């Protein structure tokens, strides 16, 4: 099921390595962060469906950081890092905002919230990965940590050296 496109060699993370991005707070960069997350997850051995879930979770974290964390202020960067650590694929998304009370976010499934047009981002993150943690960094912003455990089948295949690259989606 892995993509094998030798003419388009892609970046592969590798155990113990880290990729870090620093981006201006522009909504237009959300797709880039999503595609990189999904592509790296694919190359790390996750199934297509799990990689899309990881991409969607990271997308929501990036939207939160740009919109609510940095208040769309392009001068404030967001930082996104990806790493393979043990049996985990871990993504960190940092903003420079004043922080927010993530424990107080309303449950979008409650009857009174079902018609709300916002407030589903953190809910999506929690659903799409195994662990979501928020860390306030006093004076420096907020860091969201997203972790997804490798699937057993994926782990077995991770030693393979097939070159894979991001399959670009149309749309």
């Amino acid at each position: 099921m892995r993509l094998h496109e030798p003419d388009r060699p892609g970046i592969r993370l590798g155990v113990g390595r880290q990729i870090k991005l620093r981006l201006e707070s522009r909504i237009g960069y959300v797709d880039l962060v999503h595609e990189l997350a999904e592509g790296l997850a694919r190359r790390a051995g996750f199934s297509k469906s799990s990689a899309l879930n990881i991409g969607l979770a990271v997308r929501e974290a990036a939207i939160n950081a740009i919109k609510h964390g940095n208040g769309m202020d392009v001068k404030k960067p967001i930082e996104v890092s990806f790493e393979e650590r043990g049996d985990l694929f871990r993504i960190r998304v940092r903003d420079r905002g004043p922080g927010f009370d993530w424990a107080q976010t309303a449950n979008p499934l409650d009857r009174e919230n079902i018609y709300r047009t916002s407030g589903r981002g953190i809910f999506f993150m929690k659903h799409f990965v195994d662990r979501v943690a928020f860390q306030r960094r006093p004076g420096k912003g907020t860091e969201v940590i997203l972790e997804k455990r490798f699937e057993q089948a994926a782990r077995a295949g991770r030693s393979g050296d097939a070159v894979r690259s991001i399959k670009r989606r149309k749309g």
Partner: protein
Amino acid sequence: MKANTRHHGKVTVVDLSGKITIGEGDIKLKQAVNALLDEGRKNIILNLGGVSYMDSAGIGELVACFKRARDKEASLKLLNPNGKVQDLLILTKLQEIFDIYRDEREALASF
């Protein structure tokens, strides 16, 4: 995302394709539905068959469209959500508020 509109008598079908996400798909969805509501269209079907996924902004816009239609005494129904889109509608419990159809003829006849 692309949105193509076709009319079947009193019913308008909007064929959506691509992804409904922040900054692009959500805006195009809003524009497409607002244009129909402004024209006075009362019966709208959003055909989600070609939509690969949505994010929280896309889902939010879908709910906003539903509410705007309701406020204008119009009705907005969904056709053929697939794969991830269907998962998201179930996950968010929005399948409980939307009328969702698998068959276009059935959807057209439902108004």
